[in-house]
């Protein structure tokens, strides 16, 4: 295979990654990392660099549409970014001291359960519309467009959600991937935020954390232009397609796609935990 053929294969895989990543709020790493390392035999360090580029491109590409259309909640995103960015710094410091294999394994098992929990529609609780006073103080309650008109929502359990986001940040610092899944689950399952708002706000947030790491990995020589070029160009096109689909998609179907994608991610994490390879 020459470089032109290699570029086309990577571009096509990245298109799919950007599409699924923007639709689920997970970024594209779950597709790109295994395609590069397992199918194309790329060294994991180049794959990490390419994956970070894909996450930033998915996030920024789709966020332009999500923010304008009123899906992403900027205040929720900004507030929770304190937890994710400081968690990522802590995770990077811990990475040298903690066996990441064991963490991958545990995280994989947690994700398998979450895939099951989040693919079911959230049950409407009696207290579903009672906001957390902290959420009101932080002006987090908002509204988003649905086919039946604008729907408003209240945010619950802010401290618990914030703590989970800190955990998500630590995981992303430790393992390099996987923080998008915890972000969506924390907003959807814990904070009671509507699913489309959760995935698009996660999508909005992941680019910032990835950009901070990308600066570090660029300095270490992990970001190869020949590899990152098809990844970025594919992901941007895919994420724009994903953003168009999400607007009209039924939440029920998005939950199923999300559940499937994090199941795959869970398998990858368990495989990585057991073998030490990606």
């Amino acid at each position, binding site marked *: 295979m020459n*470089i032109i053929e290699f570029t086309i294969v990577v571009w096509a895989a990245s298109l799919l990654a950007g599409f699924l990543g923007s639709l689920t709020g997970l970024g594209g790493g779950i597709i790109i990392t295994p395609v590069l390392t397992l199918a194309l035999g790329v060294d994991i360090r180049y794959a990490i660099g390419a994956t970070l580029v894909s996450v930033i491109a998915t996030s920024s590409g789709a966020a332009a549409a999500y923010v304008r259309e009123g899906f992403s909640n900027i205040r929720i995103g900004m507030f929770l970014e304190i937890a994710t960015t400081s968690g*990522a710094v802590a995770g990077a410091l811990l990475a040298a001291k903690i066996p990441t294999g064991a963490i991958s394994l545990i995280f994989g098992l947690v994700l398998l359960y979450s895939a099951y929990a989040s693919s079911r529609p959230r049950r409407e609780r009696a207290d579903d519309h009672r906001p957390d006073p902290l959420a009101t103080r932080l002006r987090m309650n908002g509204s988003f467009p649905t086919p039946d008109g604008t729907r408003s929502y209240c945010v619950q359990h802010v401290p618990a959600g914030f703590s989970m986001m800190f955990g998500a940040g630590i995981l992303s610092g430790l393992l390099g991937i996987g923080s998008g899944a915890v972000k969506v689950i924390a907003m959807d399952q814990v904070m009671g935020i509507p699913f489309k708002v959760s995935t698009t706000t996660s999508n909005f947030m992941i680019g910032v954390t990835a950009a901070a790491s990308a*600066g570090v990995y660029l300095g270490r020589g992990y*970001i190869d232009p020949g590899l990152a070029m*098809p990844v*970025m160009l594919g992901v*941007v096109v895919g994420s724009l397609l994903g953003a168009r689909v999400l607007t009209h998609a039924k939440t029920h179907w998005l939950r199923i796609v999300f559940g499937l994608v994090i199941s795959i991610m869970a398998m990858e994490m368990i495989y990585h935990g057991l073998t030490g390879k990606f």
Partner: protein
Amino acid sequence: MNSVQKWTDPYVEELIGSLLQTGVILASAVVLFGGSIYLVRHGLAAPQYHVFVGEPTDLRTISGIVRDALNLRGRGIIQLGLLLLIATPIARVAFSVAAFAIQRDRLYVAITLIVLAILLYSMMSGQG
């Protein structure tokens, strides 16, 4: 209409959307341009990604990347586009500080400044 009234949340969202879109389009155009040069010059060679050697120094630092790009080297131009891409979310956070300040939302100015400080800290700590 004074500036505080004009800077409503939907207006700020529109501006942030435009900022992200501009960043992505600009970065993609630069990467596409550099990629074309790279593929024309090296497209028929074999890819060498199974062994990690790391990028040469000129593709790791901002000054080196700018120098390579000005010499119209394909890989340098792609790397410049990637720098624009990496800068886009950081610019979004910096712009948010200004937007919340114009809205006189002190709480969110503080929140956004904390995020920006952590981001800059983690970028600086990685450069050492």
